[in-house]
């Protein structure tokens, strides 16, 4: 034993040192605090969280979430649960866990360095490499969140490098290397499919090793090298499938569904590119060389990183990192070391290039890769994903330089210099020794003390039946919002799945689903309006039995506006017959909705067929229409009995109220004077591809814009060859002629306002440009062919403009709404939720309506429009009389920053920050006035918002009274969710009189009335069977059907997924469809008494995958043991 210690004493000392520094995470925690929120992924109840995650379906979040792609993360969720189950006290679990990760990361880089530099005197290289690798600010930011998949990516990186370098050097064998690589991936794969972006540096390093040593290998051996690596790739790939079957199988089964979702969440490639640009704001080479560039560091004086920009010593320290790293190739002398050092320098530079992401000057290449290489968009955060490779390279290079420098200094106690160097590294990374860096924006913190009432609520909730859902109020104002609580929680993830496994519904868009989001908004909206009937109908259909009021939300915090809890509390308290208080502690109250008894599994005889857009979904949640199916994506041969048809009609004229997007021209790359111009024209085939009228019109407008952009150059250059330009001009003329024909035939008398407005925008821009060319060049006088051609074009544009202007100004679009109802039958309705509401919260119905050209008076207080529609019905026009919200204006003198103005001021009646408004006025003198909207709102005091004054005149909306020569000023605006009230100011210079400048001022709410029709069809007499069900686990329900005599519809209120299957005696029910906009429905024709098995398919594949993985792991261990004993046996021989 003593000999062992003697023999390995240096190794043990080094590992002992690593173990000692691994205790650093213990310094970070305050008593009774845990890491929670932002992207940490930690639960409050580790065990319960793990129990939810061993299934591929998570029912506790909104209407259920498919976790088939998340199975790879389960081992990381298991770690804290296992530590707790081993008897570690709850508040110590994360300390132990982070220490463990600290140690494993350090040991992994230590193993690599020891392999490359094994000599005793190389200790300074080994320990420096460990310290630079583990004390790094990229890793630190993930340590602060305890983000285990990222921590594990720091383990896998050096281990992969080690195994591949060993393989390059000829040992061990191919099969064993493949098995080792897969074992490393199995334990530290960063979370399976979700972890793929995190192992970017591993892919990069592996590729760099392959490439570098390919060139290093002598040319005659290169083919062997290629063959060897290719074999390793194939062999590892095969092992990979079997080792990781546990997450691969369920993922593959749901791949097509997952992919669409993920792309939608990321906002498509464009969204990913924009994100990449944002993340790369500070990733210049100068920052990256110094191992900086994290977007969170900058413009934030409260952040722990701030001293690194201001303290000269730390700035000098930061430059020492690249200096030492790139001195390594200068110092290296021995050939063997030289190859390794050059490899890491190469890796460092390669990693730096990718870490810059979309930052100039090479950012365009990165964007190009994102756009062109399938899957590369997953690396949209270049800095976060690739910088670990730079750290790996720098740690080895700096270690080597430190060793070289210390060896060169003629000092007897070289070890002392080494120790001083190590201390300097630790000193430079001083934030690692602080416990105050979890702060996000005080009081919001990643390290929080979870209040007692939250923990007690979880205990209570866990005892309630797990087949109901609880609605959380107040909702975050925006589904994408951060959720914040006054006690410090700050996370994009809702807190509820972290504390309990019961179902919660909250306005949160964890998985993108437009229908579901509308449905949740509708739930909140009906409760907020005190429209109890609509609320109960929707709650009943969505299986909501409880309401939790959380009054501790940070309502007015600028990053997470939340609706006012008192509004919901007062409505709930007003309706005591419906809502019964069942639990209360501190600011949280739980109410039971007593008047409904929702059922997770239910039977119906027939459905409503909805041909509606998503925007009408709240109209559908009425007892009369439930359950409903949507015609979009419905199987063609579906036999489900239809009891009525629902259809909505889009408001054609509402396009006139949308904010306009300006059309602009960009400089073309090829001008008519270029010899490539005919080629350019040849490739313009949008018009040939166009099928519909709108596509043709769009293509024509696009072509006119291209020609106009080319001709615009005539404003700046002299014409050398008129013939070249004439070609573009003649083409422009012919396009506008075609537009005129198409316009007269198809658009002039249509209600296609979207396209009409588009034509108007193109037309205005191009008319101005063409007219400018004619005037500036004086082409009329010159009487050239080009001048004639352009004048003819201008004349055609003006003709269309005249007709279009008449059409677009024929009525007041804020009070008149046009719908194409030619396909309607049955009765026509107005959705009252889409109308203006007066001070008493009553909807204002139209005063009149018109079908085709016949006018009718509207029956007041009725949302039905017409009982029997005429046969030739085509166009419906609704006319409203909306109140002017600009009442009793007072004249005031207002002091602005540097000037005094006279203003007409009025509060906006019944204002809400969530609504859109439009203001109109007649202006006597162009540009003589200014209009301001002053919003009054509360601000939640946080570290960042403290600097803003709470009450100030800050007209964030300011616009000049520009009318474009018409004399009529129009301006649309919208406030913010935390606004309490707002006033509008019509101001002039103090020498002018606003009463003279502004006349007929009005402010009206912009509404978008929803019109729909319902046609009641035959009443069915089908008998519905008696149904009971039991939940086996979140992915398996047993439904017992008793005495079914007729076919029926089975509804199951978990989010629809084609992977949910219903089986009777092992046979699938084929007719599976989306029910009620979110749930699963099946059409069941079997008669008698039987059991239906509802199962989520990926769970079965998870089980098969787990068994496959276990067998592969066991087989691999046996193979390795066999190989080991063989090796020992051969050695002894």
């Amino acid at each position, binding site marked *: 034993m003593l000999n062992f210690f003697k023999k390995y004493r240096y190794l043990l000392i080094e590992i002992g040192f690593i173990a000692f520094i691994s205790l650093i995470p213990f310094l970070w925690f305050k008593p009774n605090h845990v890491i929670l929120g932002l992207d940490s992924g930690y639960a409050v109840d580790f065990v319960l969280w793990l129990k939810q995650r061993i299934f591929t379906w998570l029912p506790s979040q909104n209407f259920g979430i498919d976790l088939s792609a998340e199975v790879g993360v389960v081992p990381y969720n298991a770690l804290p649960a296992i530590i707790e189950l081993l008897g570690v006290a709850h508040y110590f679990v994360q300390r132990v866990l982070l220490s463990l990760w600290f140690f494993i990361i350090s040991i992994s880089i230590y193993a690599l360095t020891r392999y490359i530099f094994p000599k005793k005197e190389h200790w300074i290289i080994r320990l420096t490499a460990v310290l630079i690798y583990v004390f790094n600010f990229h890793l630190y930011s993930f340590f602060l969140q305890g983000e285990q998949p990222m921590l594990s990516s720091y383990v896998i990186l050096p281990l992969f490098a080690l195994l591949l370098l060993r393989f390059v050097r000829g040992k061990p064998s191919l099969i064993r290397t493949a098995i080792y690589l897969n074992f490393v991936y199995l334990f530290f794969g960063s979370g399976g499919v979700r972890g793929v972006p995190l192992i970017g540096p591993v892919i990069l390093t592996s590729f760099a090793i392959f490439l*570098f040593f390919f*060139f*290093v290998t*002598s040319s005659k051996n290169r083919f062997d090298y290629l063959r060897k690596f290719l074999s390793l790739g194939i062999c590892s790939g095969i092992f990979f499938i079997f080792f990781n079957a546990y997450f691969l199988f369920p993922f593959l089964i749901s791949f097509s569904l997952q992919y669409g979702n993920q792309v939608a969440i990321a906002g498509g490639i464009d969204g990913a590119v924009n994100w990449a640009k944002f993340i790369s704001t500070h990733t*210049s*080479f*100068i*920052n990256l*060389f110094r191992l900086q560039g994290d977007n969170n560091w900058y413009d934030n004086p409260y952040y722990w990183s701030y001293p690194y920009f201001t303290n*000269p010593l730390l*700035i*000098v320290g930061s*430059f020492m990192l*690249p*200096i030492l790293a*790139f*001195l390594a*190739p*200068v110092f290296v002398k021995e*050939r063997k070391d*030289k*190859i390794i050092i*050059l490899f890491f*320098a*190469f890796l460092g*530079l390669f990693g*730096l*290039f990718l870490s810059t992401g979309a930052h100039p*000057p*090479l950012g*365009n*290449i990165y964007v*190009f890769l994102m756009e062109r290489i399938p899957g590369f968009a997953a690396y949209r955060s270049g800095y976060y994903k690739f910088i670990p490779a730079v750290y790996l390279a720098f740690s080895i290079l700096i270690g080597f330089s430190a060793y070289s420098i210390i060896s060169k200094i003629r000092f007897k106690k070289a070890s002392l210099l080494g120790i001083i160097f190590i201390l300097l590294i630790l000193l430079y990374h001083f934030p690692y020794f602080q416990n105050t860096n979890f702060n996000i924006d005080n009081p919001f913190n990643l390290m929080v003390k979870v209040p007692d009432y939250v923990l007690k609520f979880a205990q209570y909730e866990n005892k309630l039946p797990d087949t109901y859902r609880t609605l959380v109020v107040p909702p975050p104002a925006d589904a994408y919002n951060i959720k914040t609580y006054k006690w410090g929680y700050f996370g994009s993830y809702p807190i509820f799945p972290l504390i309990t496994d019961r179902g919660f519904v909250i306005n949160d868009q964890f998985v993108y689903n437009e229908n579901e989001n509308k449905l949740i908004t509708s739930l909140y909206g009906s409760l907020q309006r005190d429209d109890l009937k609509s609320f109960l109908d929707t709650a009943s259909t969505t299986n909501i039995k409880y309401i939790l009021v959380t009054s501790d939300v940070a309502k007015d915090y600028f990053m997470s506006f939340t609706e006012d809890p008192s509004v919901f509390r007062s409505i709930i308290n007003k309706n005591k017959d419906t809502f019964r208080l069942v639990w209360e502690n501190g600011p949280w109250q739980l109410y039971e909705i007593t008047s409904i008894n929702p059922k997770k599994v239910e039977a119906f005889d027939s459905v409503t067929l909805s041909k509606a857009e998503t925007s009408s979904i709240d109209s559908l949640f009425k007892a009369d229409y439930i359950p409903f199916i949507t015609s979009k994506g419905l199987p063609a041969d579906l036999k489900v009995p239809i009891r009525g048809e629902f259809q909505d009609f889009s408001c054609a004229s509402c396009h006139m109220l949308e904010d306009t997007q300006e059309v602009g021209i960009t400089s073309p*790359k*090829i001008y008519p004077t*270029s010899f*490539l111009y005919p080629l350019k024209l040849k490739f313009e085939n949008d018009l040939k591809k166009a099928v519909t009228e709108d596509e043709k019109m769009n293509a024509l407008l696009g072509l006119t814009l291209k020609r106009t952009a080319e001709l615009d150059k005539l404003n700046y250059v002299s014409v050398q060859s008129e013939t070249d330009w004439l070609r573009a001009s003649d083409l422009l003329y012919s396009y506008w002629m075609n537009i005129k024909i198409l316009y007269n035939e198809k658009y002039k008398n249509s209600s296609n306002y979207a396209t009409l407005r588009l034509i108007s925008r193109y037309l205005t821009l191009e008319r101005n440009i063409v007219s400018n060319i004619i005037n500036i060049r004086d082409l009329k006088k010159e009487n050239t062919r080009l001048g004639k051609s352009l004048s003819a074009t201008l004349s055609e544009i003006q003709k269309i403009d005249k007709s279009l202007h008449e059409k677009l100004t024929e009525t007041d679009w804020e009070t008149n709404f046009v719908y194409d109802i030619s396909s309607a039958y049955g009765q026509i309705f107005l959705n009252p939720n889409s109308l203006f509401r007066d001070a008493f919260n009553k909807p204002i119905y139209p005063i009149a309506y018109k079908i085709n050209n016949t006018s009718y008076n509207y029956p007041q207080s009725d949302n039905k429009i017409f009982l029997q529609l005429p046969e030739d019905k085509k166009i419906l026009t609704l006319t409203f009389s909306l109140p002017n919200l600009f009442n009793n204006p007072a004249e005031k003198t207002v002091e602005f920053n540097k000037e005094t103005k006279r203003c007409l001021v009025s509060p906006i009646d019944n204002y809400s920050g969530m609504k859109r408004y439009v203001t109109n006025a007649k202006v006597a003198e162009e540009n003589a006035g200014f209009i301001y909207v002053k919003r009054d709102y509360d601000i939640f005091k946080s570290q960042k918002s403290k600097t803003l004054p709470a009450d100030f005149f800050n007209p964030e909306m300011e616009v000049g009274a520009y009318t474009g020569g018409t004399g009529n000023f129009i301006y649309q605006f919208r406030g913010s969710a935390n606004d309490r009230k707002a006033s509008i100011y019509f101001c002039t210079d103090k020498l002018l009189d606003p009463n003279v400048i502004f006349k007929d001022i009005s402010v009206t709410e912009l509404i978008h009335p929803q019109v729909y029709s319902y046609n009641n069809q035959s009443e069915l007499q089908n008998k519905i069977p008696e149904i009971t069900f039991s939940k086996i686990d979140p992915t398996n329900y047993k439904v017992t059907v008793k005495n079914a005599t007729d076919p029926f519809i089975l509804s199951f209120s978990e989010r629809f997924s084609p992977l949910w299957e219903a089986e009777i005696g092992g046979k699938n029910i084929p007719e599976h469809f989306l029910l009620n906009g979110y749930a699963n429905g099946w059409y069941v024709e079997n008669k008698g008494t039987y059991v239906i098995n509802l199962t989520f398919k990926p769970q079965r594949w998870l089980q098969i995958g787990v068994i496959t993985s276990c067998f592969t792991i066991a087989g691999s261990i046996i193979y390795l043991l066999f190989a080991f004993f063989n090796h020992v046996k051969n050695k002894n021989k």
Partner: protein
Amino acid sequence: MLRIKINKNLFKQYRFHIAIAIIVLGALLLPRIPYVSLFAQYSIGFLLWISVIVAIGFKGITLIKIGVASFLILLLLTLLNEENLAEQIGNATYLILSTGIILVIFDTLKSKR
């Protein structure tokens, strides 16, 4: 048969001028060529730079030393808050260092053979 003899010494003598001519020509021509992919632009740009370096006769290790020395200039600029200039020189440093490393790698490979 016409044979053109290239005087190697003459080439060596004027390599600096030739390199500059290539880089100037490239800079003038590249943006004029429409629809040249970014890859091509950057690759040609990098090749031009390398050809200049090789033509001038810089050794990889000298370039690395220049790169390391430029970190001291960068440090000074950062301390003086000259961020924009520092960023530009930082980009140049990356180019110098990567060229240096590539040349050293090639030198090492050559010496091996």
